[in-house]
């Protein structure tokens, strides 16, 4: 192996070992807070792995959603858990399973893992997959980034269902009526100034990611998650968002994406007899419109998932 490939292979090995070691440490640790922080680090390492695998779109999504937003959700849940749990706050350990059962379980899982590894080993070294099919139709899709073309045009149905799943999760969270995140101490002058500086930049970055998704890594999900990060930052800095946005505005923003998708699919069914079949001349503009609506919805749904309670819950009192 020449020097460059040797260096790249050692980089791969370093990433892989760090991933496996961190995932083991997440569960070997007694402190829950430390486990969550390690999980965030795990997400960021995964983003590096996605870059190594030539998947920059996934790297952006994993860093923003997988590491950032999931980490924020986990930390706020841990804080609320400490408020409600009666005892044993941060310490948790495994079930006191007998050693024989543990070793039997380890054996079974190693068998499962070994079987999977054997199957992977027996797959052909080169498999075309669907790359050629997508590249062939890319000119008709309206965008030049193949992942965006697949997400918003060729497999637009999956994206429609995905936005519905997000909305469904939000409805589930709102219907369970947990207590809202406690205010916490008011933000110091430094944090306040930083927030005022960062929020316009974050909104601009979200708009850029939305626009650039047509021809470079980016797109609606990455832009929506940056928007959600901006909202979470505002909430953490003590700004009283739930009071200043009326619940109706939030509800309209949250259903904007799903409704736009549904209207587009109904229109396409009526005019083209196929679900989400765009007219070829307007495909690019239509995709941008769908992505813009989806970005707003995704951003506010994720931020509302972090907030945790229905802002209109106080209206009935």
């Amino acid at each position: 192996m020449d020097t460059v490939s040797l260096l790249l292979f050692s980089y791969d090995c370093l990433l892989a070992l760090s991933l496996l070691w961190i995932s083991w440490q997440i569960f070997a640790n007694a402190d829950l807070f430390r486990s969550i922080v390690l999980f965030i680090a795990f997400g960021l390492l995964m983003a590096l792995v996605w870059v190594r695998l030539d998947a920059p779109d996934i790297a952006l999504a994993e860093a923003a959603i997988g590491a950032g937003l999931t980490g924020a959700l986990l930390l706020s849940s841990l804080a609320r858990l400490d408020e409600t749990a009666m005892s044993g706050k941060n310490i948790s350990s495994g079930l006191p399973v007998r050693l024989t059962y543990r070793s039997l379980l380890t054996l079974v899982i190693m068998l499962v893992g070994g079987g999977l590894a054997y199957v992977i080993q027996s797959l052909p070294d080169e498999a075309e997959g669907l790359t050629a099919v997508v590249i062939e139709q890319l000119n008709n899709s309206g965008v030049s980034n193949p992942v965006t073309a697949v997400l918003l045009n060729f497999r637009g149905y999956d994206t429609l269902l995905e936005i519905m799943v997000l909305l469904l999760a939000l409805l589930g969270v709102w219907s369970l009526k947990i207590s809202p995140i406690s205010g916490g101490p008011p933000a110091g002058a430094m944090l306040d100034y930083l927030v005022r500086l960062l929020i316009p930049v974050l909104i601009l970055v979200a708009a850029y990611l939305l626009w650039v998704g047509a021809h470079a890594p980016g797109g609606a999900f990455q832009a929506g998650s940056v928007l959600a990060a901006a909202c979470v930052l505002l909430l953490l800095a003590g700004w009283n968002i739930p009071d200043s946005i009326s619940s109706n505005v939030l509800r309209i923003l949250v259903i904007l994406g799903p409704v736009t998708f549904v209207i587009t699919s109904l229109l396409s069914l009526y005019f083209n007899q196929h679900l989400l079949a765009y007219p070829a001349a307007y495909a690019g503009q239509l995709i941008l419109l769908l992505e813009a609506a989806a970005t707003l919805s995704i951003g506010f749904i994720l931020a509302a998932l972090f907030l945790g309670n229905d802002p209109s819950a106080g209206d009935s009192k």
Partner: protein
Amino acid sequence: MSQPVFYSTIGIGLFCIGLYALIVQSHLLRRILAINIMGSGVFLLLVALGGRGTTGIPDPVAHAMVITGIVVAVSATALALVIMLQLSQTSGRAQQPDKSQDSRH
């Protein structure tokens, strides 16, 4: 070892670690972490296998599926966390009860 096979094996390793932790851990928050790690392992497997193409471009359908999967995973995690909080509010703890001690009483 070629890159697809290497990263697929790492993905399988992550899946197995997550599965073991899901079964053995008693605290619900750690179980949610375990499910997320299992998901990351599966995504790694999908994308690594999608990089086996003969042209330089990796399979965009696999990438799109994984982006969809990441978003669905975060929404499932959010709902699971809220259910866990509800459970801890009603029962006072977020941990599976210790059955081996109950049987001795």
